[in-house]
């Protein structure tokens, strides 16, 4: 029983981290419908930048974090303006090819600059264990879970409650209509992609302090983020949270009781089942266009 509770706790913590890693993709893929295969590489850049600033430069974690967020936002804006904009409205394939190319470019540039070694973001939070009944969680993980929750809530409120959020939803549901009410859709695309990149980078830096930042982990981060977004339903933030938690829990319990070599495959099996049973995901309500 104690083992089960511990696995449950691990699963929830990892699940929150998955939700955070997928948050940027929820915007970019779920709402904006850009199949961004470079999502994991944006995460990697965030992690490596976090490592460089906290370790090599020696900045405090909380000074480095806003720099990474802002830097990744600007990076995303430039990528959208100079690359994504060229393939907008040309079907998903061109975007897929473009972002695959971009991911290869980023991975190899990262390998050239920092090499293959795993690097650790220096964080002020200790790996001191905290005991909650029979369950052990480190202080750093608890703190990161809290930060994830705040970020997810903030993005949800941004999309649902603010003028920018309404302009985003309008643009992605019907861009012509959005332009006709005076929304500058070009800015909306750019800002959404910037926000998605900033969130991916933030996840990379936060989780780079728990796990490691490494040039080559982007691929698996991308794939799991896609799993989370598809499980939860395109563009749904509640869905991204639940999708992340489900993936974290299933992996933890499978890892605890089943053959551990298959842990990474479990998520993909889940997606296949989900696409067969509920193709729109757990939380997406599909409305027909009349």
């Amino acid at each position: 029983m104690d083992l089960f509770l511990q696995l449950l706790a691990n699963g929830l913590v990892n699940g929150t981290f998955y939700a955070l890693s997928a948050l940027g993709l929820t915007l970019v893929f779920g709402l904006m419908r850009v199949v961004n295969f470079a999502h994991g590489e944006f995460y990697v850049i965030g992690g490596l930048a976090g490592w460089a600033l906290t370790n090599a430069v020696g900045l405090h974690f909380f000074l480095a974090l806003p720099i990474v967020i802002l830097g990744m936002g600007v990076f995303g804006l430039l990528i959208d303006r100079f690359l994504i904009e060229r393939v907008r409205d040309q079907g998903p394939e061109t975007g897929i090819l473009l972002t695959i190319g971009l991911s290869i470019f980023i991975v190899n540039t990262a390998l050239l600059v920092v090499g293959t070694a795993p690097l650790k973001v220096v964080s002020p939070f200790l790996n001191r264990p905290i005991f909650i009944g029979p369950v052990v969680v480190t202080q750093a993980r608890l703190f990161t879970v809290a930060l994830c929750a705040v970020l997810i809530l903030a993005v949800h409120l941004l999309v649902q409650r603010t003028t920018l959020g309404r302009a985003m939803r309008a643009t992605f549901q019907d861009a012509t209509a959005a332009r006709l009410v005076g929304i500058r859709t070009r800015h909306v695309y750019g800002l959404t992609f910037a926000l998605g990149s900033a969130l991916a980078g933030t996840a990379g830096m936060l989780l780079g302090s728990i796990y490691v930042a490494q040039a080559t982990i982007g691929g698996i981060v991308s794939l799991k983020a896609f799993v989370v977004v598809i499980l939860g339903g395109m563009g749904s933030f509640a869905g991204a949270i639940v999708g992340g938690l489900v993936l974290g829990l299933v992996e933890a319990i499978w890892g605890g009781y089943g053959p551990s070599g298959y842990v990474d495959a479990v998520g993909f099996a889940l997606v296949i089942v989900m696409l067969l049973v509920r193709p729109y995901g757990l939380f997406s309500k599909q409305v027909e266009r009349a």
Partner: protein
Amino acid sequence: MAPVLELKGVEAAYGKAKALHGIDLRVEPGEVVALLGANGAGKTTTFRVISGLMRPSAGEVRFDGASIAGCSADAVLRAGLAHCPEERHVWPEMTVEENLRLGAYLVSQRIEIERRMERIYLRFPRLKERRRQSAGTLSGGEQQMLAIGRALMSAPRLLLLDEPSLGLSPRMAKEVLAVIRELQGQGITVLLVEQNVHNALSVASRAYVFETGRVVAENTSQALLDSPDLLKAYLGG
């Protein structure tokens, strides 16, 4: 009187395919003017050029005397010209209320937005009843009313209405015509594209007949109604 809208020699193309070959037209303040013609004659493209969705490759577009050719869609809307597009284009996953509010996206005063919302709800009580429903769940007629309501939220002086009765029941089409007459009563100038010639001519005072990207005839509605042969010749019956 100075025209509220004037097009001179407007040309436009999709890639290399030329869609408009020099359109000239004038709309006087307070008029309802119809654009008639078969599919692909260039009526919708003309609307897209006027409202800034598309840049003309040549020619002049003047709204209240000021050139708006090549202006962005938000600048044209700000000037007081709204475009209610073909096929309605409501946001299906947003509520009726969100759709309407976004129509006043360029308006910053809350009180003004509320006042306009009230006016729209007073005119279209069905929309008020359904304000919390997603727009995608409305019937075709209700979606059309929503699209018109959304365009009116910007308080335009000139409204472009593209195929407002397309796919609607005859009863709903009549309702749309009644709305157009009311708009005219409020001093809003309307430029209308309509497949149903008789409906169009029953509200418009004048009409332009389009054929393959050109204006081939311009006359009063009465004159067009009196010469069915002329209409038939241009519109294929």
